[in-house]
């Protein structure tokens, strides 16, 4: 029997994806990565811009005269190594650009670096974990091209952010210049942005290189620890002798002399960092191309004792889930606290040796005896401590919310567990996690202060104010989750933390009315490191913490689960 064999009908060729959508949108992996990066880019760029403008305003208002600039330069030069570590190397701080670089340089690098770490640790590994990467890999594209497009997308987002940063820096120089040397040339602004962009990308590329092997969480943790550790080691290399040799291995040291806003460029240092960056990205791309998708090497992390896992009820279970994160935050904050406390001796020695500088500090921070370790901690640690405990609270609230967003809550609520009981138990577990972090921090601060021969009790007890502040933020997060939806809770806590920090920072700089500055909860918490507690702030924290849980429990009873 003859059989007629015909070719398969040829499908009409698909229309080409417009270039615009391939560059931004769903037309390509690159375009989608840029699109997915927009929120992070906007937030980070806005924060960087605010810091640059704040620096400009400070310089033109607070230090608007030649005398004030001379005083500032003298103070920055006479600072003991401990404080120099906090601020960085003072270079032309009597100019606008030099001041911005000196005062905010660390914030710039850490903030943008954190964004890059979060983005590049999850850009492939996070998708692999969710399973969505399988779909992309199953398209007719090589893994290398997928990885390359993802990296290029993120690098483009950084580039776009840095263009804005360069423009803001230049405009700030033009508008805020009061004295000769204040203006910032376009070339200096561009050099500054390029340097910051490379510093940003190198932090993320560590995460990207590690992620195919160890997965998203471990990659973000390792890169974050390297960035923060590198910053501390570089900053305090003159204080802690053991850091000196290690410091040369950090990108903070390689790029330390690239301060274009202060007239100093070091393209060799930036070039080395860029090369390291490229090598790390290549490792990540090759790792992704050669390894099984989504298969990672399990780290030999010790398991928690069974008693701490919490299988007896919702409180224990929620706390058991938060415990590893709480321990990580507690140890990290504790190390920072013990370093700061122990290093306070260097400031005390410097003040002993220089009565003039002691006088400057007394004028700068009236009411706090800076010649004690507790006073130093209030000056140098409390403000950043509020930010860090806020970030910790945000991660705990995110962990709590994941019960609902991942669907675990649905199974739990199909048992005789009431919604209100879960809401209260899981909220209380967040409190317990914050308490654990603070207790570890308090112990470390006490250890550090005791090591310099001073009374450890007052500053150790003072750190407990962080627990109150964290519990208040957590209460707000639980309340938001209860009345709206779980996924809103973490962003709400994060926004409050950053908003409070910015309010504290900017209200005096911008000479805002007093009541505006008083809106920050941290303005009502006294100086607890030196034993001065503010009852109003404490009461507000307690009300917010408990009230948030009550509101959250009532809200949970009323709304759909998983909505």
């Amino acid at each position: 029997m003859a059989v007629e064999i015909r070719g398969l009908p040829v499908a009409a060729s698909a229309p080409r994806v417009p270039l615009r959508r391939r560059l931004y949108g769903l037309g390509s992996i690159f375009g989608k990565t840029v699109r997915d990066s927009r929120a992070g880019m906007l937030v980070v760029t806005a924060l960087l811009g605010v810091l640059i403008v704040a620096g400009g305003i400070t310089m033109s208002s607070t230090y608007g005269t030649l005398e004030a600039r001379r005083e500032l330069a003298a103070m920055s030069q006479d600072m003991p190594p401990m404080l120099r570590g906090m601020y960085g190397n003072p270079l032309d701080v009597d100019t606008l650009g030099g001041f911005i670089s000196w005062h905010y340089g660390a914030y710039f690098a850490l903030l943008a670096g954190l964004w890059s770490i979060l983005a590049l640790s999850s850009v492939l590994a996070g998708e692999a974990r969710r399973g969505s990467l399988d779909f992309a890999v199953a398209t007719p594209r090589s893994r290398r091209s997928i990885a390359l497009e993802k990296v290029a997308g993120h690098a483009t987002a950084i580039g776009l952010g840095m263009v804005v940063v360069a423009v803001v820096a230049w405009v700030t120089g033009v508008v805020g210049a009061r004295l000769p040397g204040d203006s910032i040339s376009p070339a200096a602004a561009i050099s500054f942005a390029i340097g910051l962009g490379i510093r940003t990308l190198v932090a993320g590329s560590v995460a990207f290189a590690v992620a195919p092997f160890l997965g998203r969480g471990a990659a973000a943790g390792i890169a974050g620890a390297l960035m923060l550790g590198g910053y501390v080691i570089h900053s305090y290399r003159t204080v802690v002798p053991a850091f000196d040799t290690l410091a040369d291995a950090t990108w903070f040291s390689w790029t330390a002399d690239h301060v274009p806003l202060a007239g100093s460029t070091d393209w060799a240092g930036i070039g080395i960092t860029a090369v390291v960056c490229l090598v790390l990205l290549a490792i990540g791309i090759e790792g992704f191309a050669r390894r099984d998708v989504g298969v990672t090497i399990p780290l030999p992390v010790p398991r928690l004792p069974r008693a701490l896992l919490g299988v007896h009820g919702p409180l224990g279970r929620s706390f058991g889930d938060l415990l590893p994160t709480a321990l990580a935050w507690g140890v990290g904050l504790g190390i920072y606290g013990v370093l700061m406390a122990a290093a306070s001796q260097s400031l005390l020695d410097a003040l002993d040796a220089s009565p003039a500088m002691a006088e400057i500090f007394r004028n700068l921070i009236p009411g706090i005896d800076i010649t004690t370790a507790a006073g130093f901690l209030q000056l140098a640690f409390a403000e950043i401590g509020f930010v860090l405990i806020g970030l910790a609270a945000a991660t705990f609230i995110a962990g709590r919310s994941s019960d609902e967003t991942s669907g675990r809550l649905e199974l739990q609520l199909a048992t005789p567990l009431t919604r209100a009981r879960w809401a209260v138990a899981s909220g209380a577990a967040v409190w317990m996690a914050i308490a654990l972090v603070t207790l570890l921090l308090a112990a470390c601060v006490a250890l550090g202060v005791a090591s310099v021969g001073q009374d450890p009790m007052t500053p150790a007890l003072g750190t407990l104010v962080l627990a109150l502040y964290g519990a208040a933020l957590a209460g707000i997060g639980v309340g938001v989750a209860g009345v709206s939806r779980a996924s809103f809770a973490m962003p709400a806590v994060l926004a409050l933390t950053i908003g409070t920090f910015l309010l504290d920072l900017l209200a005096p700089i911008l000479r805002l009315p007093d009541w505006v500055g008083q809106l920050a909860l941290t303005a009502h918490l006294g100086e607890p490191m030196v034993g001065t507690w503010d009852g109003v702030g404490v009461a507000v924290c307690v009300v917010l913490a408990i009230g948030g849980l009550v509101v959250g429990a009532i809200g949970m009873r009323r709304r759909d689960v998983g909505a």
Partner: protein
Amino acid sequence: MSVIETEKLTKFYGPHRGILDVDLCVEDGEIYGFLGPNGAGKTTTIRLLLDLIRPTSGRASVFGIETTVDPVAIHRRVGYLPGEFALFDRLTGGETIEYFANLRGGVDPLYQADLVARFDLDPSRRFKEYSKGNKQKVGLVIALQHRPDLLVLDEPTSGLDPLVQQTFFALLRETVAEGRSAFLSSHILDEVERTCDRVAIVRDGRLVAVDRVEALRGLAHHEVELRFTAPVPASVFASLPGVSDVVAVDDRLQLRVSGSMAPVVEAAAGRGLIDFETREPSLEQTFLAQYGRVAVGVANHGR
């Protein structure tokens, strides 16, 4: 007595339709199949029954208790398996099962261990290390371990291999033998046919059919296509027992056969048959062919 009863149960997610005017009645001691295409509203219905979401209008009761009034009393007697779920990555399967047992104030450890053994589950591995099928086993043990009066299972055999599916069906039969009930959603004809007493079909948020599964078997038919060396008159096959809807197109015959296929095969064999294709329509297609797409009330069918 009804274990589940809904009355004009409706749910909207903002402007988006969930389910509309669904009237269900599940009797004590029966296994009730709930079928429908993706997005039809099966999971919405199940989540409403458990008070995980609240109705926009209408009402639902389980064990005679309105779901929004005392959900905890309902949950005490229900075993639930969601269609998609995540559990605690850091806990082992055994610890996860233990946690849910504790939330219920404890379960019979021997029965729990028996379930783990029958599902051939290794409880010592962390939940995140399990395959999809093993995660489903953990979910099934959680749903079954307290011997609930009512099982509410959303696609229970999803991801299970055929052997484990057999174990699950055996457990389901044991459940009913003990006088308990089950409400399960499924896409699989064989699964529903073998296990369910009654079946409901939901489409576009509305209940379009409810009937006993025996009625389904009665409706079962094959769509057959025969190809011959030369055209064959349709009348030759139209008169055969169980044959209907005969259509002749050139050298092909399309027909619908209910019951035995033997008369068709014998008749075709003597007329130069060169190809024989048969297709069994899905349960949903069978039901829809019978009942159309008009929403129905439970009272009209199958009770």
